[in-house]
């Protein structure tokens, strides 16, 4: 199971929707945000690929670029010892916050990772089974890992932090 083979299989299944970036030893794929659940499910369920392990879900804020957020899914196949990174870009709209389908139906471990990413970046994971905050106080309305959030916080938004 090498990178070319994964690429071949994914192109066959999803056509031109995916963009491949290859760096030495690692491979990442840019997935359109509306396709993320399908791609994840395919990667896990395909008997040859078997990406059964989600290492983490994280976010990157590219403020002020557009689209603003990039979600990173680092996945692993325990039986093939193969790693793969999926990236998906989302942005806030006038209609509401940036949102993407939750993958916790595919890998249970995505639950906490997505809760953390959601509160840190203000991205909404649609269909998440338990969309509460995880690490931050419930009353906070700010998203600290966004690039426009000041390092020390602000007195109004984060009253319990020493400023």
């Amino acid at each position, binding site marked *: 199971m090498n990178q070319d083979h994964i690429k071949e299989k994914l192109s066959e299944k999803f056509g031109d929707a995916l963009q491949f970036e290859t*760096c030495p030893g*690692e491979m*990442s794929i840019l997935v359109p945000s509306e396709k993320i659940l399908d791609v994840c499910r395919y990667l896990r369920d395909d008997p040859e690929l078997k990406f*059964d*392990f*989600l*290492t*983490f879900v*994280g976010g*990157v*804020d590219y403020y002020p670029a557009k689209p603003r957020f990039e979600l*990173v899914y*680092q996945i692993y196949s*325990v039986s093939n*010892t193969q*790693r793969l*990174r999926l990236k998906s870009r989302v942005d806030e709209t006038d209609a509401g916050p940036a949102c993407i389908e939750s993958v916790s139906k595919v*890998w*249970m*471990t995505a*639950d*906490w*990772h997505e809760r953390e990413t959601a509160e*840190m970046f203000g991205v909404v994971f649609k269909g998440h089974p338990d969309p509460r*905050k*995880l*690490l*931050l*106080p419930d009353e906070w309305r700010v998203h*600290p*890992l966004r690039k426009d*959030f000041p*390092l020390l916080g602000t007195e109004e938004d984060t009253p319990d932090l020493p400023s």
Partner: protein
Amino acid sequence: MARELSQRADIRSEIMEINLGPHHPSTHGVFRAIVELDGEIVLSCTPYLGYLHRGFEKTCENKKYHQVIPLTERCDYMGASSNSLAYCLTVEKMLEVEIPERAQVIRVIMAELSRIFSHLFWLGTHGHDIGAMTPLFYMLREREEIMNLFELTAGGRLMPNYIRIGGVAKDLEEGFIERLRAFTNHFDTRVDEYETLLTKNIIYMDRTKGIGLLPLEKAISLGVSGPMIRASGKAWDIRKSEPYCGYERYDFDVPVEYGCDVYSRYLVRVEEMRQSNRILKQAIQQLPEGPFIAMAPGKIFPPQQDIYTKMEALIHHFMLVVEGVRLPVGDCYQSIESPRGELGCYIVSDGGTNPYRLKWRAPAFVNLQALPEMSRGCFFADLIAILSSIDIVLAEVDR
């Protein structure tokens, strides 16, 4: 049987919700869980985290690359060297620098010592949680020896802060190898001694066998790694599957147990200590002469001795301190086998001197997520045993 009892019509029973923590001795930190109990049976357990959240990732984004190293060690303070190793390996992967042989072996020594260090303390406190007070005192004795070794060569006892981008901070102190050899020579018999306390202890076995079941399929879906997945029957160890620091040159076994329970996790960790000791013995044999840090001017700090004696080294050092090292634009993920499982670091670089984004894949955070799954339907007292078998470090969970 207990469940049937509580559901009999003539016994009045109602669901009780109790609050465990945040300050509970069994949580080894500040961790809170709301537990729903039917009599003594746990119906559900909902963890509440964040009491130790200090914005580690945000802080890293505002530090230069070499300033991040001590911060990482404060995540998992029980296996401190593993953290800085994971971070430095990620940065080195992006910088594409070759690490000298001697530095690699020293790193293996530090990583394995911290694994033994972490497992020792786990074993002591795990016994303590279950009611076996004795082991802790023995564990602290050996742990002290390891802390003395850390102190001898790095200065710090708990958090050595010894690994640097490109190698290690300085060469091993004189006499370190002799003392390490003495430690490795008697450590195996010490592990046998610990086993006499718990392995065949009928009370311990009764408390841990068949408790906290986590079948392999669930474990994989929950992202569980390290000793916990090995106790669920999967011989997955990153040191074997994706070797780093030259682990492929060492001869060691990956212990596997198939019980999926607390007892299996105990057996795996005890055996891991033996295997780590085996690696340490080989590392002493393999330790070559040579530089302890890579020579890459403009990327890696020159050795301290050179700064005092060579003009160029002083200039490079000055520039690195003032400006910092610039990583090429891109992103990179690197993981290692920490005492708790897959410890990974994901760095996004925009070409600047600070990480644009640093994501810490903390094994304890992920493993803790399996707690509700494992504790459902067990006794409340078993919940404590299960929580302790995960081996959480709350500083790492909350980051």
